[in-house]
Structures are given as structure tokens and as C-alpha cells.
């Protein structure tokens, strides 16, 4: 297993070019091409702003402007959820590679997560522009945490993607369950409501949700003033994710030999 993990490092070049291919292929044939990576989050933000300002004005105590608050959580969530949705089917879609070419299968879910991360990163300038527009209280000290949050999320997402992609080979309906599960998960995460507004009994459950800590971290660093107080949770999640990643890789490695026969 560790031998295979080491091999993963040697496949950097392959991962790199597959991510590039993924991004190129996605926008091939569209007029705006890469600009969609900017426009999509922008349009999303405009829609939310419009709805929560005029259609059903939201009163979230202590989280104003609300649209910006929500945007801080939705952007990373989109990366997370589309990574998982796509990686659930990625081994089946890549059956040609797995069956006909000697190809390290774990690369496929990893590439999916990374390609979605690039989309996330491309959406950041829009977020930054709005943060500045609304005069969000950004400080350099807090912003240093930002890459760490992204890294922890990357770790966590890849681990989950590995397990999901491997299990979906054997149980195809994970893909359908997953869509519903993600909707539930979305509402069980403090993204459209601030954590501190949740009733005390719910906070216990929110703390059990790993993505809560990521969302809270993003919000604290980008949106709320004051020092980043959630760092202990974030680091704990980072360490837990590292263990989870090793475990996930172990599961994936154990199932690896069955892929060529099952996909």
C-alpha cells in the first residue's frame, strides 16, 4: 500500500495533465470558455443577493450582508459537493482506462477533486472583489489561514472521493443516494445560517459534521471581524483527515484488483 502511495507521487505529471485536460475539455466548444469559471459563481452570487434582498429578505442576526456571508460558504461547498458527485461515477466512466491500460485508478478521483478545486480557485477573484466592495474586515494575519483551510478541505475531500469512487464500482446506486445525502448535508452545515444562531442542542450535531468546521473557518477568516478563533478545530480536522486519507487509501487499495472486473 505504501509502495502504491509513493508511486502516486511519481504520477504528478500525469495528474497535472489530466487536470488540465479535464478543464480544457469542459469548456471546449463554449464561447466564453474559461470565463465560465468566473461567471458561474458571479451569477450565483447575484441570484442569491437578489433573492435574499428583495424576494425573501433574510434576517440573519450578525451576518450582514447576508449574500456575502452565504457566498463564503457556498463556494467551498460547491467544490466539495461536485467533487463527490463526479468522483462517485469516475471509475465507471473511466472503465476503458482501467480495463485496457495499466493505469493507477486512484488518479481518477484525485483528478476530479483537483479539477473542481481549480474551479473553486478561479471563483475566488469574484469573491475577493465582493469582499472589497462590501469592505469586509480582512486582515493579513487571518488570510494566512486561508491556504491551510483549503488544504484541509482538499485532504478531506480526496479521502472521501477515494472511498466513494471505489464503493460505487460495487454498488452503483451510491450515486443516487449521494445526491440526496449531499442536499441533507448542505442544510446540516452552517452555510446559509451562521453557526452561532443555531439552537444549543443543534450545535452539538453541527460540531460532529466535519464540513461545519471548514465552513466556519472560511466565514471567520473572510467574513467576520476579529481573530480566527476556530483554528483548533481546523487543525484537529486536518489531522483527522490525514488519518482518514490513509484509511481511505487502504480501502481503495484493497478494492483495486476488483475494478478491472467490475466496472
Amino acid at each position, binding site marked *: 500500500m505504501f509502495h502504491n502511495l509513493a508511486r502516486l507521487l511519481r504520477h504528478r505529471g500525469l495528474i497535472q495533465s*489530466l487536470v488540465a485536460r479535464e478543464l*480544457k*475539455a469542459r469548456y471546449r*466548444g463554449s464561447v466564453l470558455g474559461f470565463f465560465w469559471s468566473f461567471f458561474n459563481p458571479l451569477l450565483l452570487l447575484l441570484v442569491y443577493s437578489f433573492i435574499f434582498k428583495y424576494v425573501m429578505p433574510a434576517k440573519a442576526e450578525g451576518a450582514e450582508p447576508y449574500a456575502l456571508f452565504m457566498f463564503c460558504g457556498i463556494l467551498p461547498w460547491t467544490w466539495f459537493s461536485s467533487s463527490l458527485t463526479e468522483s462517485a461515477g469516475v471509475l465507471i466512466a473511466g472503465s476503458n482506462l482501467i480495463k485496457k*491500460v*495499466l493505469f493507477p485508478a486512484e488518479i481518477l478521483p484525485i483528478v476530479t477533486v483537483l479539477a473542481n478545486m481549480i474551479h473553486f480557485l478561479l471563483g475566488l477573484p469574484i469573491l475577493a472583489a465582493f469582499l472589497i466592495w462590501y469592505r469586509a474586515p480582512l486582515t493579513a494575519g487571518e488570510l494566512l489561514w486561508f491556504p491551510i483551510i483549503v488544504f484541509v478541505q482538499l485532504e478531506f475531500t480526496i479521502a472521501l472521493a477515494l472511498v466513494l469512487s471505489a464503493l460505487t464500482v460495487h*454498488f*452503483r446506486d451510491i450515486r443516487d443516494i449521494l445526491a440526496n445525502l449531499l442536499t441533507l448535508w448542505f442544510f446540516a452545515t452552517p452555510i446559509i445560517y451562521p453557526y452561532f444562531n443555531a439552537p444549543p442542542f443543534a450545535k452539538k450535531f453541527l460540531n460532529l459534521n466535519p464540513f461545519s468546521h471548514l465552513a466556519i473557518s472560511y466565514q471567520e477568516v473572510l467574513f467576520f471581524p476579529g481573530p480566527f478563533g476556530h483554528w483548533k478545530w481546523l487543525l484537529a480536522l486536518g489531522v483527522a483527515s490525514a488519518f482518514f486519507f490513509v484509511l481511505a487509501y487502504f480501502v481503495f487499495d484493497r478494492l483495486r484488483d476488483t475494478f478491472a472486473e467490475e466496472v
Partner: protein
Amino acid sequence: MTQAIDVSHVSKVYRRYARRRQFATLKSALLSGSLIRDLAPDETFAALDDVTVSVPAGRTLGVIGRNGSGKSTLLKLVAGITKPTRGTVRVQGRISALIELGAGFHPEISGRENVFINGIMLGLSKREIAKRFDEIVDFAELKDFIDAPVKTYSSGMYMRLGFAVAINVDPDVLLVDEVLAVGDESFTHKCLDKFAEFKRRGKTILLVTHALGLVERFCDDALWLDAGHVRGAGDPKRIVGAYITDVETTEEQHLAAADAKAQEGKSTEPADMFQAAEGRWGSREVEITSVTLTGEDGQAGHVFQSGERLDVRIALHAAQPVEDFVIGVGVFNAEGVCCYGTNTNLEELTPERLSGDAEATFSISALDLVEGTYKLDVGVHKIDGYPYDYHRLLYTFRVKSRMKDVGIYRPPHAWRFAGAISFKRTT
């Protein structure tokens, strides 16, 4: 000598699931608590059973066998795509597997980008690909199309590009699965030239193919797989010969079964003799009790080599003595064209008397027919055509030939040359 490929006591067992498993889902598995039970196979199927084979570095091994004999499974095991259930597979050096050409191509992006990504997938670095890029494109003959998305390629272009990338990986061990069957003539030649170059450079090749001629010409050794077992290994000529004989024996059985079926059916005399389908009719005053075909070795059979001797032995029985009888034979090819027909009357044999049991043998000293399936008419009738017993197209035989000449028959012939012309001696 070092072994480039070493397959030792390898078995590969595939699982076969009953219908229940096919529709099983995680939900139902969890609900009925049968998760563990459903994962257990209902039935297993050994695609390979205790196969041992090794290929020394620099040799070319041809793997032959019927469909489903385990050839491709062996190739996938050597490539490392699947793992053996039992036994070990060891391969020395870089492998390139031509199992499906262009398997990793992405349809939306250009040929150029696909070459790079495919090359990296096969283990090359970016710089190595850049260095070989022109060579790859030249080989694939795609200079004008290399920047077009791969989805616009014809299947031939797609395949050529896939082959060009895979062959330029410069592997130490090349695994080839029947990929030559798909290209046009000139591309196939190009591929063969490339393989020959590989051989010269001392690379190891494992070739899975149905093209037996290729195995004989091109391989140093041959391996014959049959239902997951090694049936034979060694000199290609000998193994291919043994394989062909085995295939003939099986065909033989099929033909014998088909004949038995055809002779069961009875029919009446048709209005037009030459358009009639198979059948049997006649007054049976004289009966054809059996027709056997025997070859050079005197054994009854249904498959014969072109140029060999063929005897058609017709057993007759006349309940009452008859004095007016003609015995005839006709040979038809698969398209229904009469290749040859004759009878005792045409050959000016005047009938005298036939009573009780008798046998007539129509003996062809050299069966100069081209390869194919043929059917026989055998009949006994009066000189005026009144049929006693007529067997229309009831006997089938196959002619095998190593020469793939065409036409209806092969006249005895030879080539002679004079002047400044010469041919290479073939092995």
C-alpha cells in the same frame, strides 16, 4: 537466458453471479442484511487454470486458441491490469500493452493533446513525448489533423494514432492483442514492420492473434491455450499444425451432425433439378445405404487438405436385380455453383447388372479445389433420368488449404521464370 516474462502456475478465476446479484443494490443489500452473502460468488469460472509459460528476453511468443480460451486474460495478467487468483506473474522491464488502441483518448480535445496525455499514461515524460512527437504523427499519417479534436477522427485515424503512441513508448516488453485485425492493408504492413524492428532490437513480444500465418512467420515460440489450459507450447509450425488439426476435428463433428440431420429429412422430386435444395427422393428400387468420404489415410472424414486424395464410397442395395442404372456424383461449392459433375453413363460405362449389396467408389486422386465448404450430390437413376435414389446436397465436406488462392478449382500448375527476376526463398 533471463526470462522477460515469467508466468508460473497461474490461475484466474472469474466470478459468475446469479441473476439475484445483478439487481442487488446497496439499499437492498443493507435492508435484507445480505451484504456479505451477496458479495460471495454464486459460481466461479476459471479463465486460466494452472498456466505456466515463460518468454526469454528478446523472443516473440504467439498465443493462439479459440475464442474464450483465455488468451486475452493471459495478456491482461502479464500487463498487470488484473491480478492472478493463484500463482505469480513476473515481468522485467517497461511494458506497453496494445490491447485497445487509443483507450485513454478524450474525444473533446485535440490529437496533439491526446498524444501527450496518452504518452504520459503509458509512462513517458513530457520531454520524451515532445522528442518523439513528429515521429508519432508521421507514423499515424495525421499531420493535417493533429490539432482537430479526436471526436472528429475516423475510426482508422483514431486507431492509427493510438498505435503510434503505444509503439513509441519504446517498451522492453510489448503485448499485442489482435490489434492488427482492424487496420487496412498498408497500415497492417507498417505495424508488422515496426514489430520486426522491435524484434531486431531484442525486445520481447507477446502476441495474441487468430492470424495463424503470422504466428508461423513471425514468432519464435507458440503457445496454444484451450479452455484455460496449455494444450501445447514450442515450435510455432508444430503448434499451429496441431491447433489446425484440432479445429478440423471439431468442424468434422459439426459437419457430421449436420449431415445426419439433413439425411433425416425426406422430400419429393423437385420440378427443377438444378434449383432444388437438399433432399432425398426416388423409387428406392436401388437404395444408397451410405456415403462415406475417406481421405489419404483411408479414414472417413469431412475435412480434407487441398491436393490430397479423396474417395467417395457409395454403398448400394438393390432389392431386385436391375439392369438399367447410372451412378452419379456432383460437387457444389458454398454458393451452389456446380464445380464438377459426372456419372457412369457420361463416362461410357454400360450397366449390366446390380443386385443385392454393392459399393461404388468415386476416387479423386488430387482434390484440386480451393479452400471452402463443399456439398455433394450422389444419385442412382436410370439412363433416362428416372431416379432410384437421389441424395441432393446431403454430404458436406471442407477443403483446407495453406494457400489462399481463389476461384472454383485449382488447375495443376507451376511458375517458371526467366531473365532478370528472382524471389526470396521463403522459410
